[in-house]
C-alpha cells in the first residue's frame, strides 16, 4: 500500500480542522462555558497553514521539486502494528481485573513473538522473570502496581 504523505496529511488535517470548527468547538468548548477565542485562533491558524501547505505542494509538483514522498506500508506491517496496539490496549484493560503479573507475562510473551523471537526458552525467561523483577523494584520504591490474585498471594508471603 502506497500512501502519498503530502496528500494524506493535507486531507486528514483538513478533515480535522472542519470537524474541530463545526463540531468540537461548539460541543466541547462553547457548550462547557469556555472561551472559544483561543481554540478558534488555533483552528484558524491550522486552516491558513493548510492552504499555504497545499500551495507549496502544488509549487513543488509544478517545479518538479522534492515532495515528502510516499509511505510504503505492507499489510503484514500494518497487521503487526495493529496487533501490538490491540495487545497493549487489552493489557491495559486486563491489569485492572487480573493485576500486574499475569497480564504482563502474557503480554511480553505475545509481543516478543510479534517482534520475531522464536526461542521458547528466551520467551519463557522474559515472560517469567521480568514481570517479577519489575514488580519487586516498584514495590521496593513504594509505587503500587495493579493488584490481582497473584499479587495478593505474594503479599501473604512473609518476605517483603
Amino acid at each position, binding site marked *: 500500500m502506497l500512501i502519498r504523505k503530502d496528500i494524506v496529511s493535507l486531507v486528514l488535517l483538513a478533515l480535522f480542522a472542519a470537524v474541530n470548527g463545526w463540531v468540537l468547538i461548539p460541543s466541547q468548548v462553547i457548550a462547557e462555558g469556555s472561551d472559544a477565542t483561543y481554540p478558534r485562533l488555533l483552528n484558524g491558524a491550522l486552516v491558513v497553514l493548510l492552504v499555504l501547505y497545499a500551495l507549496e505542494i502544488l509549487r513543488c509538483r509544478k517545479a518538479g521539486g522534492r515532495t515528502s514522498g510516499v509511505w510504503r506500508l505492507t499489510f503484514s506491517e500494518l497487521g503487526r502494528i495493529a496487533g501490538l496496539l490491540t495487545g497493549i490496549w487489552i493489557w491495559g484493560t486486563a491489569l485492572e481485573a487480573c493485576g500486574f503479573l499475569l497480564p*504482563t507475562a502474557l503480554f511480553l510473551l505475545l509481543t516478543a513473538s510479534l517482534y520475531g523471537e522464536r526461542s521458547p526458552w528466551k520467551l519463557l525467561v522474559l515472560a517469567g522473570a521480568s514481570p517479577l523483577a519489575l514488580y519487586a523494584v516498584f514495590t521496593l520504591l513504594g509505587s503500587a502496581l495493579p493488584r490481582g490474585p497473584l499479587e495478593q498471594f505474594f503479599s501473604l508471603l512473609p518476605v517483603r
Partner: protein
Amino acid sequence: MLDILANLRDGALYAVTWTNILGSLLGYAIGVICGAVPGLMGVTGMALLLPFTFTMSPLFAIAAMMGCYKGGCYAGSITATLFNIPGTPEAAATVLDAYPLAQRGEQKRALELALWASVIGGTISNCLLIFTAPPLARVAVRIGPAETAGLVLFSLTAVIGLMGTSRLAIWKGFLSVIMGLMLASAGLDPILSTRRYAFSLTELDSGIPFVVAVIAMLAFTEILEQVNRTRELAVRREGERRRSLPYSWGQRLADVRLCWKDLIRSSLLGSFLGALPGIGAAPAAFVCYGEARRAAGDKTLFGKGDPRGIAAPESGNNAVAASSLIPLVTLGIPGSVAAAVLGGAFMVQGMIPGPMLMHDHPQVIYGLFVLFVLTDILGAFLVALPFIALVRTLFVNMNYNLLFPLVIVFCGIGVYTEEYSLFSIHLLVVLGTLGFVLTKLGFSVSALVLAFILGPVLERETRTALLMSNGSFGIFLTSPIACTLLVLSVLLFVWAIRQKIKAERGEKASLLLDPEE
C-alpha cells in the same frame, strides 16, 4: 561573582553525598544504554525514568535525570562509530567521520575521542550555566507576560526554522507546532477554569498528562517504528566484526594538539546555541561540524575519519545539554525537549522552574550544578569507559526482540504510576498511534512535543498580557523586548525559507551537473 562562589560551596556541601553521586551515575548509565540502543534516546530514558522519581529526593531524582540526558548525548556516538547508525539524532554529524575512522580499525580512538570531547563540551557548558544563570535569573524576574509570550513564540519559530531540508518541511513543522498547541489546549481553561475538549471524561479535566504525552510521543512512537526494523538492525550488526587497533598515549596527545581549538570553539558555540530556546543538540552538532570544517587548513580528511570531525560535533552536542537549562532555570521556558522533561521532574518535586527557582531553592539548584560537573567527569571514567570496553560484544549479541517488548511495559507502567490510572495506558496507545502516524507522514514529533509543553505557557502569558492591556495587542509592540522577539521570529522564519530555497536550488544544480546522482 562572590555570591555565586559562596552559593556553590553551600550547594556542594549540601548535594555532594554518595547517594546523590550514585543517583547521577545510575542515570548516566541508563542514558548511555538508551543512547547507544538505536531507537531509544537519552530523552526516552528520561521519560521512562520520570515516574520512578516521584518517590525520590529532589537532588537524587534530578541528578539521575540529568545524568541520563548527558549519558544519552554521548552514547549516540557509540553505534554511530561502530555500526554507522546514530544512536540519537545528536550523533548524526558524528557518523560522518567516526564511522570511517572505525572502518580503518581505529574504533577505540574514535570512541574515546567522542567521549573526551563530550566531557570537555559538557564541562565548559556546565561552567557557563553556573556563571550565567544567576545574573539572568535576576533580570528575568522583571520580565512580564508579553515578553515571555514573545520568547515562547521565538523558540517555536527557531525549532521550525531549523527543521528539514525543504520548504515543505518548514510548513510541516508549523503544522506540528499547531497540533502540539491544540493538544495542550485540552483540559481546563487557564483563566476561566472551565472544561475544553474533555469529552465528558473526568480523567481529561486536568488536560493530557505531561508524562503520558512525553512517553507516548517520544518513547512509544519510536517503539512502534521499530516493530518492522529489528531484523534490519540485526543484519547490520552482523557485518560489523573487524579488528581493532590500540590507541596509544602518544596518539592521544597528538589528537589533543590537533583538536583543542575545535573543542573549545565547539563547546562555546554549542553552549550558545543550547541557551537559545528551541534549537537543540542535533542542529548544534551540525553547526559545530561545519565550523570545524570551515576553520580547518586541510579539509581533505573530513568525511574520511578526521578526528576534528568527531571532536567538534560531540563537544557541541554535549555543550547543549547543560546550557539548554539556562532558559529553564531563569525563565521557566524549556530550551529543548530534554529540558522540558527535566522541568517536569522539577515540578514533580514541588519546584516551579522560573526566575524564582534559584531564589527559593538555592541549595538544591547550586547543588545540582555541582553534581552536573561531577556527572560529566565521573560518568566518563566510571561508566562510559568500561562500557566502551564491553560495547562491541554487548551490541553484537543484543536481542531487540526481547528489548522492545520490555520497553513497552516500561512505557505502560511509567504512565500508570503517574496518576495510578489505567486510563493513562489507553491514552498512551491513542497518543502513541497519533505520534507514529505523524512521524510516518513526515511531521516532526519533537516540535509537536515542544509546542505541547510550551502551549500552556504561551496561552496563559498571552491572555494575561491581553488582560493587562484591556485586550489591545499593542502591548506586544510597546514592550521593546517582546517587540524585538516578535521581529526576530519573523526574520528567522524568512531566513529559514531563504536557506531552504538556496539548498533546493543547489541540489537542482548538482543534479543537472551530475544526472546520475
